[in-house]
């Protein structure tokens, strides 16, 4: 087994005791991840998302099958690979989740506050948005991320996202860069990607949305940002806010070219 070969190699290299213990821990975490990856609970969310996409829902009892995610009405395959992007009908830069809201309101007649009512699952309250995001992202599986970054508003969003990425605030003086600005660092045993390094951004940004074992649900990029700001001792980030989309555009700039492996699987 690969783990034992690595262990033998490490022993042969004569690493000092403490370093060896750390290698063992890392290896065990990776082995745990490999075992988990054999069956991804996100499959179930994708399937539910596909049902929701096709079901007539909302006051207008219409499905989402005419929703334009950027490649034309009803085109789902490949759409996630070209988000975030500017949309002419709303004249805004939008990510997947904000675009789902646009379609739920515009096509299905939901009130905006109802469409955005339950973005993150909780016990007894599964989120439709998580399922829909899983389905749409899965339809870009294996494709290359190519968020456009061409339209003036897309470029402005990048610049705003960049300012936000470095913005230090709150009682802990945290900014995104505090944790995501250097290679090879981790918090406790959780490795931290350097998001301005394309090699890392291309691997990590494209693994969202993902089933998070610790959360017991698929979580999306909106949740990831919400969760980051929670840790950063900031208040609740508004769902599909302009700040969240600007940060996604900033990250996509470095992540473009990466292979979409979503929905992924994380601790």
């Amino acid at each position: 087994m690969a783990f034992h070969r690595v262990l033998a190699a490490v022993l042969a290299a004569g690493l000092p005791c403490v370093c060896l213990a750390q290698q063992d821990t890392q290896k065990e975490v990776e082995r745990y991840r490999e075992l988990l990856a054999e069956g991804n609970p996100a499959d179930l969310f994708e399937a539910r998302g596909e049902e929701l996409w096709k079901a007539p829902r909302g006051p207008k009892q219409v499905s989402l099958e005419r929703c334009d995610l950027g490649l034309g009405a009803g085109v789902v395959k490949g759409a996630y690979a070209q988000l975030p992007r500017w949309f002419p009908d709303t004249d805004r830069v939008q990510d997947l989740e904000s675009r789902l809201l646009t379609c739920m309101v515009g096509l299905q007649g939901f009130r905006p506050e109802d469409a955005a009512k339950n973005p993150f699952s909780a016990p007894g309250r599964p989120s439709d948005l998580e399922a829909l995001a899983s389905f749409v992202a899965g339809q870009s599986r294996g494709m290359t991320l190519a968020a456009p970054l061409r339209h003036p508003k897309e470029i402005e969003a990048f610049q705003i996202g960049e300012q936000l990425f470095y913005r230090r605030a709150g009682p802990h003086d945290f900014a995104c860069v505090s944790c995501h600005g250097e290679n090879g660092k981790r918090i406790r045993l959780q490795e931290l990607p350097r998001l301005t390094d394309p090699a890392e951004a291309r691997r990590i940004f494209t693994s969202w949305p993902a089933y998070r074992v610790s959360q017991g649900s698929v979580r999306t990029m909106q949740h990831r940002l919400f969760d980051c700001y929670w840790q950063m001792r900031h208040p609740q980030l508004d769902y599909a806010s302009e700040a969240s989309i600007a940060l996604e555009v900033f990250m996509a700039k470095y992540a473009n070219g990466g292979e979409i492996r979503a929905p992924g699987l994380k601790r």
Partner: protein
Amino acid sequence: MADPMRIRASMAGDKVEVRVLMSHEMETGQRKDASGAVVPAHFIQNVTVTHAGRTVLSAQWGTSISKNPFVHFRFKGGKPGEKVSISWVDNRGERRTDEVVIGGG
């Protein structure tokens, strides 16, 4: 009553491939809460999956199965359109049964 299981059953070659995500706290009875009191054990003890009156999977679980168990397995003999039923019983006697229709594949 616990949350419904998320289940999907589809054909994978000549077998039925089933994925189930159960919603259950799976408390070991070893944890202590913030006030230092032990959180009582509450975990699924038995899982039974049936198809056409036949048990295709039977599991006896203990406290090493973690929260929101995910089960992924295959069995022979099912066809699209037929039902698969999944049941669990926990150590408090609470139970849950959900059904799924086998999809195409």
